[in-house]
């Protein structure tokens, strides 16, 4: 190797190792400076998030000075298991409904003139930027016994007496779908917008029916957006707190409510921490699985 290098690189270059050394030293100094620049941001996140997460994990296996898995045993038996199952069930329903509602919206937005697309996206983004609390409140008003939805139902003769729409699982699902729908539409749109119209045209010119062209060409090409949207909505569902707490009527207890109650009411850090750790592991597992398929950065940058 050395002899061939000598043949190409002039002798004096090889006898001057200080050049690369200086460059490396400069690079190292540069990296250290960049680390200092990052330090304030890191300090905030480490002190307020990383340290407490580590402490929560530690706390979840500690009891009276010894180690215990009692907190985890409780999760896999009895009421906590029901809570986790209910949370996963609701998250799956909400994710499924948002995908069903979000796909046509994104599809239309990606296939119309830019002006019209901007209007559709604007109507998706406006609720997106409205406070979650405000939107939950709006649904409480709309769905209550004397609310507008019940009035319409009564007037149309579909029902004889007001239906219970709020303060139950149904109301929770409706409000959560509304709040999370933009998180589905935006990644779907950004994936579909990159699919050239010529793709579907090529399929059609080769004799594919519109349905066939959609299923075999467009749908697979939009899968990146589907994965991003589903991941984002499902993960947000798993940890959702405000809407289930206000809309659920205290009957359907989600994981987030168990965590909050154990801390606020029972002051039971052991139970809260083990539930948190399991929830956190679920979330990270989902993010990890998604990151094998699509770049994670894009998913997080959606908002």
């Amino acid at each position: 190797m050395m002899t061939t290098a000598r043949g190409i690189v002039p002798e004096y270059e090889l006898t001057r190792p200080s050049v690369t050394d200086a460059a490396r030293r400069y690079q190292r100094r540069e990296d250290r400076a960049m680390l200092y620049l990052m330090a304030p941001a890191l300090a905030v996140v480490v002190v307020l998030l990383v340290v407490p997460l580590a402490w929560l994990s530690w706390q979840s296996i500690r009891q009276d000075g010894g180690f215990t898995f009692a907190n985890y045993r409780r999760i896999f038996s009895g009421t906590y298991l029901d809570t986790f199952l209910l949370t996963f069930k609701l998250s799956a329903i909400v994710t499924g409904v948002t995908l069903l509602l979000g796909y046509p919206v994104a599809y239309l937005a990606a296939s119309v003139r830019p002006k019209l697309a901007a209007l559709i996206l604007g109507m998706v983004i406006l609720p997106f930027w409205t406070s979650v609390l405000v939107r939950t409140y709006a649904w409480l008003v709309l769905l209550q016994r004397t609310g507008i939805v019940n009035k319409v139902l009564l007037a149309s003769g579909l029902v004889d007496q007001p239906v219970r729409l709020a303060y139950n699982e149904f109301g929770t699902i409706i409000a959560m779908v509304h709040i999370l729908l933009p998180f589905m539409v935006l990644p779907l749109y950004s994936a579909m917008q990159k699919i050239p119209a010529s793709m579907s045209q090529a399929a059609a010119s080769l004799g594919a029916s519109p349905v066939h062209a959609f299923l075999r060409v467009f749908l697979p090409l939009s899968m990146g957006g589907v994965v991003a949207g589903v991941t984002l909505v499902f993960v947000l569902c798993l940890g959702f707190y405000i809407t289930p707490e206000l809309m659920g009527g205290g009957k359907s207890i989600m994981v987030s409510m168990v965590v909050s109650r154990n801390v606020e009411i029972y002051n039971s850090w052991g139970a809260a921490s083990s539930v948190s750790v399991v929830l956190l592991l679920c979330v990270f597992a989902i993010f990890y699985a998604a990151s094998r398929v699509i770049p994670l950065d894009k998913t997080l940058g959606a908002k």
Partner: protein
Amino acid sequence: MKPNPLARGLLVASVVLILAFLMIPVIIVVPLSFSDTRFMTFPPPALSLRWYAAFFGNPDWLAAARTTLTASFLATAIATPVGVAAAYAIEHGTHAWIRRLRTVLMLPLMVPIIIVAVGVFFVYSKFDYVNTLGGLILADTMLGLPYVVISVGADLRSFDHAQEMAARSLGMNRLRSFLTVTLPQIRSSVISGAVFVFIQALDETVVALFVSGGPNQTLTRRMFVTLRDEIDPTIAAISTMLTALTLTLVLIVVISRRGRGIAEGARV
């Protein structure tokens, strides 16, 4: 390809319905806030400003609004420069560790908010910092940082770093070359990052439920606690004002982005 008109019509009709589903709850709050009755009937029987009067006449609501605005402003003032510095470091760092540390800065977006809240509450209770304004500002700063890092980071990636190098080779120090050469050109992403921090702090409820209280209760915390008991129309008035404020801020972002779009078009 000739689209099937029936399928197209069905698609358009369903999208219109879905968009109505998205928009109605956001809009409905506005007429309700001007209603003169306690019962949330629609359309309101008569218009009045009574719920706005109820908000502005109640010192508790006003104190909560002041807390929220103060915390949001200060969190924005801290998170923006700190986040820009971090985004700059991530862009210029070469070591693999720097990229890994970026993931740490993204954690506030990834960890479910309820767990963030419990964690922050734990730290503050150790240091007797619960129910303080400072604690609230710090928590909002942490939650806002990822937005600045994402927004500014994306802009820096497409920025031509040779410009800053040129300024430095002409004798400017690093800070000055950043402030006079780079910053003006990434201005719009800094503004949108800052606006996101502000809106996030304005809207933040779950962490505030745990760590804000007493005289330092936030607006959203008070709204949440009130809603747990009853559907108070005062909240419709507050919601309308909050939405109006958020929309104004989002418009600022859109306008600053549009300005950039024009500038870029001119360069190309």
